[in-house]
Each structure stands twice: as C-alpha cells, then as structure tokens.
C-alpha cells in the first residue's frame, strides 16, 4: 500500500478518522491513538518489502542510540559530529549507491526521516532539546507520524510534541477536524484531478526539425506543463498530509503558498516547498553563514550571503539526487539567489524602483520564467536537449 496514493489507503484513512473524531471531540488525548495508527499504516506501507523495513528499523535503532548518547553530553563537539554522521549515514549510503545502480539502505521516507533526525541532533547540541524531551513514544511518533512520513511536510520535533501533548478544547478540535477534512478534499482535487489532467498533456519531445520559433514554443509549453504538474501534484499531496495531521490534532506547517505569484527568487523559496526551504535556512544556511562570520573567512555581508546561498542550494541539489539534473538545479538556484542578493543589496536602480508597479510586474514575470527554467533542469528536459544537440 502506498501512503496517499492507493485506494486502500484512503479507505483506511476515512475509517481511521472516525475514532479520531470521537476521541478529539470528547476532549481526550489523540497521542496514543496517533502512535498506533501511524505504526499500523507505516507497517502497511512496508508490507511485502522486508529489506526496506529492515533498513528503516536499522535507521531507527542507530539514530536513537546516537541521539541519546549525544543528549548525555550535548555540548561535546565530538559526539555532535558522530551523531550527525550516524543520522546522515543511511541517506548518504543510499544516495551514493544509487549512482552505482545499487540503491543500498533505501527505504520509503528515508529523506524526510533524515531531516527530522538531523533537526533533533542539531537542537540537542544547541541545548534546545534535553534528555527529558526525548521520551521514546514522542520520538517514535514524530519520526513515524504517517501523514508526514513519505514526503513531508517537514515538521519540527518541539512543535510537534507540543501539539501531540496538548488536548484541544472541543470547539478547537472541531475547527481542526473541519479544516483537516477540507484540506484532504482540496488536496485530492489538486493531486488526483488537476495534476493528473495536466500530466495527460505532458509529453516531452526532443528538439525537432521545425523552425526555431515552433520548436522553442513546444519546449516552453512542456516546461510550463511540468511546472504546473509538479505544483498541483506536490501541493495536493502536502494539503492532504496537512489535512490528515489536523484530524489527529497536529497543526502540520504549510508547504506551499501560491509560489507562481512570487516577485523574486527569495519570495519563491518562501512559497515553494516551504518546510524544506526553512529547514535548509535554519540547519544549513544559518550554520554555514555563522561559521563564515565567526571565522571571518569571507569578508563582507553580501559575499557571506552569496557563499551561503550557493552552498545551501548545492547541498539541496545533492539531496535530491547525485545526477546532473538535480545538482544542476541546485546550482542554478544557488546562483540565482546569490545574484539576486547582489542586485538587491548593491543596485541603486533596484532600490529606486523596487516599489514601482511596472518593476514589480516585470520582476514577477522574470522570476516565473526562471522558476520554470529551473523545473526544466530538474525534470531532465534541459539535459535531454543538450544531449540531443551534442549528438546531433
């Protein structure tokens, strides 16, 4: 069974919401029910895939040991580095082995469980998570919470635990439940109706023999269709995950906020896959820039930011996968963010006109084209065209 995809999942989900509603509306804690439900649904997702299940269990055991060991002496740099490596290890092994067509230690949700694990390691080292916050049930619930298990949104453990332990009043829960069900329906329409429909028209083609304008138009159309498909598919999935979380009393953070109206590339990343970009901001970008500022390795604030953006987006690219398309996508956005930082901080023209309507419209239009171009790198369309051009 695939989470948020198979009919059997949705039937189980619909059935599972009924007891949740009863528990929530009678002002009881949904935590134990949520834990059991998550364990059952995650087990069903791994059914018939014993190697993957073993990979997940091994990950849980290793990362739990590393985290508890770190929590006993959180300020130790040695323990912090070791715990981070252990928590990252399966994802690294998996992503590198895929390059050699091996796919070792891969399992459903490996990326997202790694994000959550690293967040806990970092915040334990920062002193924000202590041993008493690392109760076994809370930890397991956070990592296995089924709505966010396979593809996010990436929640944060302290926020999650506060919701899991809180018992909303009847009215409050009724509001959550109503919003949750609406989000589930909205997400289903996005993903299963709109994204499916767009996908029907999406058929990437090589650069043909027609005149330049016709061929370019065909490629642009393909890129836009892919962008539209990706948005409705992923935003739809995210809304459904959010909806299911709400039904269990967990206020899962929002993942998309009308990304195609972004007026610059920073604005885009505040609207697209928000929980991923804020995760990277907090645990990669801020750490890299803090390190650069402390060590005074790079001079000047704009330069520090530019280095931070480049490193940040390259790492994000590698996370998507070690392929030319994904790393190219990361590099593309890193360069765009660095260039935008330079323009916004240094250009007098930008400062003089940034509030003008014409400038904002132009900036929106340029941003949208760059975003779509980025997706065409991500989807492999650009590398296919380049390959075609080289091979003739």
């Amino acid at each position, binding site marked *: 069974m695939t989470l948020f995809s198979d009919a059997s999942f949705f039937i189980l989900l619909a059935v599972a919401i009924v007891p949740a509603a009863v528990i929530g509306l009678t002002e009881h804690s949904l935590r134990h029910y949520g834990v059991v439900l998550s364990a059952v649904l995650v087990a069903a997702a791994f059914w018939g895939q014993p190697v993957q299940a073993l990979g997940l269990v091994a990950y849980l055991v290793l990362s739990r040991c590393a985290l508890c060991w770190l929590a006993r002496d959180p300020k130790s740099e040695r323990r912090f580095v070791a715990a981070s490596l252990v928590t990252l290890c399966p994802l690294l092994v998996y992503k590198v082995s895929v390059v050699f067509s091996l796919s070792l230690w891969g399992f459903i949700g490996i990326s997202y469980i790694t994000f959550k694990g690293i967040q806990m390691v970092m915040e334990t080292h920062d002193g*924000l998570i202590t041993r008493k916050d690392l109760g076994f049930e809370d930890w397991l619930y956070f990592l296995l919470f089924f709505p966010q298990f396979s593809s996010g949104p990436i929640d944060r453990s302290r926020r999650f635990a506060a919701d899991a332990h809180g018992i909303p009043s009847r009215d409050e829960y009724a509001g959550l439940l109503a919003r949750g069900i609406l989000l589930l329906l909205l997400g289903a329409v996005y993903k299963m109706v709109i994204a499916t429909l767009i996908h029907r028209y999406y058929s990437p083609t090589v650069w043909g023999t027609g005149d330049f304008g016709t061929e370019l138009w065909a490629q642009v159309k393909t890129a836009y269709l892919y962008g539209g498909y990706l948005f409705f598919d992923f935003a739809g999935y995210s809304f459904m995950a959010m909806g299911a979380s709400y039904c269990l009393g967990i206020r899962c953070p929002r993942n998309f906020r009308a990304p195609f109206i972004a007026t610059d590339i920073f604005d885009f990343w505040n609207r697209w896959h928000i929980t991923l970009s804020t995760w990277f901001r907090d645990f990669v*970008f801020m750490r890299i820039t*803090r390190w650069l500022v402390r060590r005074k390795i790079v001079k000047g604030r704009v330069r520090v930011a530019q280095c931070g953006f480049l490193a940040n987006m390259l790492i994000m690219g590698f996370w998507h996968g070690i392929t030319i398309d994904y790393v190219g996508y990361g590099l593309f956005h890193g360069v765009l963010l660095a260039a935008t930082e330079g323009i916004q901080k240094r250009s007098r023209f930008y400062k003089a006109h940034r509030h003008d309507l014409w400038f904002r419209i132009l900036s929106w239009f340029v941003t949208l084209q760059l975003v779509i171009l980025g997706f065409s790198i991500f989807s492999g369309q650009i590398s296919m065209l380049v390959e075609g051009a080289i091979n003739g």
Partner: protein
Amino acid sequence: MAEMTHEELTAKVMDLLEDVCGDDEVRRHMDDDLFGLDLLDSIAAVELLVGIEDEFGISIAPTEVPRNEMNTPDKIIDQVEKRL
C-alpha cells in the same frame, strides 16, 4: 557581568545593533520590526547572534527564538537580559 545594569546592557546592545545595521536610525525604532524596516536581514541577524556571543558570552541558537520574538531592539535587549 552580574552587576551590569539594565541601562548598561541597553547601551551595549544598541552599540552592537548600530554596528550590525550600519545605521544609527535603529535607535529611533526601539519597538519596530527591524526586518520590515530593512535594517536587519538574515546575514545581519547571524552577525547579531555572533556579536551577542562575543560581547556577552551567551549563545543563542538559530532556531532558539522565533523571529517575531527577536525583531525589535526592545525584544533583542529582553532576550539578552533573560540569559545573563
């Protein structure tokens, strides 16, 4: 540092903020959102955290305080004071 008064602490934080923002304008906005006024951005915020660490010996992690609890001079002073 235990003997530092509120006034001394305020003066020190404001010197640091003026330095980080590169503008004494910040002193006229004790209760205003410095990000909204373009006096602080993400890198300036990192420099501020590093500056607080150097000056007061207290470390505030990037995810420790939500931005809306540390976006005005008054709130920044308050966050530092809490930790001293």
